[in-house]
């Protein structure tokens, strides 16, 4: 029996101790009417057969050159990240409630908290939440609790899927979400500032925006503070190696989707929700937080702290219902940051941005292709095509190229806009291939 060690002799001995005749007798407490018929599932398979089946399912039909991003990016992941985060002492351990036998996980989370705070220029971090979308929601909840107000202002340039999640998560609460439209693929900072008033708990923006543009939020956050509201920004961690930090910008809460820090794309998860804030808001943080203290001998020791905020103590009055963090994903991010260091991360950011600039230059030389706006951008650029972006994507598929993300799916009216992302994992040859493919598609139509 796979994964069950009992020999028939042992089963007999154990049944004798329990004083029942057969294992089936142990299920007598299940009311008779509720007992299940045999499950209609395929027969069990050997380990080898299961693996062969999945290897077949995972095999791609060909090679792709990809410029797809839209919030999730294929950066280089050092092999040592897999080797270290794959150690079973990390993988098969439990939530570190018993601190003395969990110092490995606890110290790693403390180091992760330190690393993301330094990267974002913020004071405090929690041990992480599920993903960038839930991090944004939890940030909104922090602002609602801290200000005792009920309105959240959201920029339309925030990742559209995260905005949809925000709506799902707040549907049962007394929260008003007000979305301020984008201005030709840019954050309309003035329009956002105008609607901030004394009823507003927070303004939520993204850096770079979903469209890849880099915005200046300093005045916006100053206005929010004038009105007693909080400034919340969702950032792209890799680009934070070079961009002004949320701390420098005046943000009160900075969150992120941490996938770009050493996590594979893995078809949507598991990912990492990074949450950081100013010290004044620390007691509003949801979920796990690790603190440094000392043991009885005065040695440094790490523990889960501020547990009085949490569900297992406060029940219905907890700051959040979250019980876990993405411990293993946070560990990957920490190892990734440790291997790249400040220079490597900045190099990854710079190289990704350089390639995106190169894409923009080459592509805008093609007939009818323009940049969607002239804002500074990071590693992702919005290009306007003379034909629908979905058509561009579909035609590029035949060339084995994913040219980007057609934003019209989420932004009606922008059906001709394609979001093209680069990372340091792309090569100059990849860029040539993309441009050649686009030229081919556009040339073929004219």
């Amino acid at each position, binding site marked *: 029996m796979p994964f069950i060690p*009992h020999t028939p002799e042992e089963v007999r001995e154990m049944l004798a101790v329990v004083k029942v005749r057969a294992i089936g007798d142990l299920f007598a407490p299940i*009311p008779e009417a509720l007992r299940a018929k045999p499950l209609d599932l395929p*027969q069990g398979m050997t380990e080898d057969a299961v693996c062969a089946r999945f290897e077949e399912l995972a095999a791609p039909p060909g090679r792709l050159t990809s410029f797809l991003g839209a919030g999730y990016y294929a950066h280089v992941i050092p092999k040592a990240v897999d080797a270290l985060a794959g150690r079973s002492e*990390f993988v098969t*351990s439990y939530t570190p409630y018993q601190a003395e036998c*969990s110092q490995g*996980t606890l110290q790693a989370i403390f180091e992760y908290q330190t690393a993301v705070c330094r990267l974002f220029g913020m004071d405090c971090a929690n041990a992480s939440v599920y993903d960038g979308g839930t991090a944004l929601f939890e940030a909104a909840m922090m602002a609602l609790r801290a200000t005792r107000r009920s309105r959240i202002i959201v920029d339309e340039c925030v990742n559209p899927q995260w905005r949809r999640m925000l709506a799902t998560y707040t549907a049962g609460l007394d929260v008003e979400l007000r979305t301020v439209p984008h201005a030709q693929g840019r954050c309309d900072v003035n329009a956002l500032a105008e609607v901030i008033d004394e009823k507003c708990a927070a303004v939520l923006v993204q850096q770079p925006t979903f469209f890849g543009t880099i915005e200046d939020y300093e005045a916006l956050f100053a206005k929010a503070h004038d009105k007693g509201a909080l400034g919340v920004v969702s950032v792209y961690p890799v680009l934070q190696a070079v961009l002004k930090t949320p701390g420098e910008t005046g943000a009160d809460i900075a969150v992120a989707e941490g996938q770009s820090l050493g996590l594979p*794309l893995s078809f*949507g998860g598991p990912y990492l929700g990074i949450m950081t804030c100013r010290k004044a808001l620390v007691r509003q943080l949801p979920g796990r937080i690790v603190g440094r203290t000392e043991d009885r001998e005065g040695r440094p020791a790490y523990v889960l702290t501020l547990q009085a905020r949490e569900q297992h103590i406060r029940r219905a009055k907890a700051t959040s219902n979250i019980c876990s963090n993405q411990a293993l994903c946070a560990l990957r991010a920490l190892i990734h940051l*440790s291997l790249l260091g400040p220079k490597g991360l900045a190099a990854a950011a710079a190289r990704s941005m350089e390639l995106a600039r190169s894409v923009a230059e080459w592509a805008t030389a093609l007939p009818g292709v323009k940049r969607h706006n002239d804002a500074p951008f990071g590693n992702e650029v919005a290009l306007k095509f003379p034909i629908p972006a979905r058509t561009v994507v579909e035609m590029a598929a035949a060339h084995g190229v994913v040219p980007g993300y057609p934003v019209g799916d989420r932004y009606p009216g922008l059906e001709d806009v394609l979001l093209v992302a680069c990372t340091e994992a792309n090569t100059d040859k990849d860029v040539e291939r993309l441009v050649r493919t686009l030229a081919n598609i556009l040339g073929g139509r004219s």
Partner: protein
Amino acid sequence: MNTIFEDSVPGRGAHIVEGDPEAVGKTIPESLRRSAPADLPQCSELDVVRHFTRLSRRNFSVDANFYPLGSCTMKYNPKFAEHVASLPGFLGLHPHLAELPGFGAWVQGALSCLFDTERYLCEITGMDAFTLQPMAGANGEFTGVSLMAAYHRSLGRRRTIMLIPDSAHGTNPASAALAGFDVLDVPSEGGLVDPEAVARILSERGEDVAGLMMTCPNTLGLMETHLPAIVEELRKADALLYYDGANMNAILGKMRVGDAGFDVVHLNLHKTFGTPHGGGGPGSGPVGVTARLAPLLPGPRVVKGNDGVYALEEIPGSIGPVAPFHGSFGVILKALAYIMRLGGEGLVRVAEYATLNANYLKKRLETVLDVPYGDLCAHEFVASAPEGLHALDIAKALLDRGIHAPTIYFPLIVKECLMAEPTETESKQTLDEYVDALADIVDRAGKDPAFLPAAPTTLPVSRPDETTAARHLRLTLDMA
């Protein structure tokens, strides 16, 4: 042990990604750039490898230690499932690819895995439809109770109260509150949910009650034998019944919650289906519903066309997405591989041997601890520390013997509670060692009053000062 930051040497690096950071200056105005580089570790690859290898050795893990953690189902995590989830074809797959025209062939394998997982979970639970989006158990709970709220809303009524037994996990009331419900406690009677108490509440507040959240078998390790009567009371009030899947390992193939009258269920793939806990995540908490709630599920869902082609389809009446894409895909793959490996018969054996192990352990411990409830237990049971001893101290003494502590001080209704769930993957020898260890600890505690409060003494640290940790917060190296 030093932190990685203290091991850092300015100018050192692993040189994995090379490039010129100054190139950024060409495109981004200085006003948008950070003023100084982030103070991240500067280490060689070997520095990093040594640091994290050493850290890993300061952890207990299922691969090295027995974890009798009640309600956590710390079973062995099979290695072949890790292999499956690390196949490069899955790891490199961009989730947005599934929405793009022309790339269907690249996502067929991944979509078929999601489709099959949903189908198998439906069969295992007797529910009609599943969403795999929730990214952990608590996230599943939130999704489940949100579906209950949406169901009542779809019938044009607002139900504001969620009933929750006093033996429930703290997450249940926290999830219900997060979804906007007022929580009303249901008192237990003899360790079970009392159908008369439910009936009483419903007769007074029935029009406000959205439903009842149950864990079955409950956190005391007892089958809720009054379930049919409870279902009947709820049906009369048109209130819904929620199944917290924390204890699903006890009933795999023995009872299907859909057949038993539950309307919504969340499962914990990281408990029941053998995926690792990762030191606190990532998990996966799929939610199943009966047909009447299916139109409300988070979308999109995976559908299979007559031509055998898998595609994504939006759900028009959905409560909206709770995850960016399809949930913890990597975790879902491991659970699917586990289900395929075991098949229907193998899953039933899981419940059988988990229950045998728990009952054997319970009987053997009756001479060591105070075991208050029932004759037979399900896959776990509660015990109280002997008079004069504290559960916390016993837990710490177990750590010194290389055994992870059981769940302590939960459920709240049991005094000095030690709640043990051995799981089916542990051998009789391991269970016997646990009994011997506990017996020896209790014996030594009786002879030497200083013994228990001193534990643990053999681990990298002794008991940390938690009060100071909370009063003088040090959450990063930079917090004074």
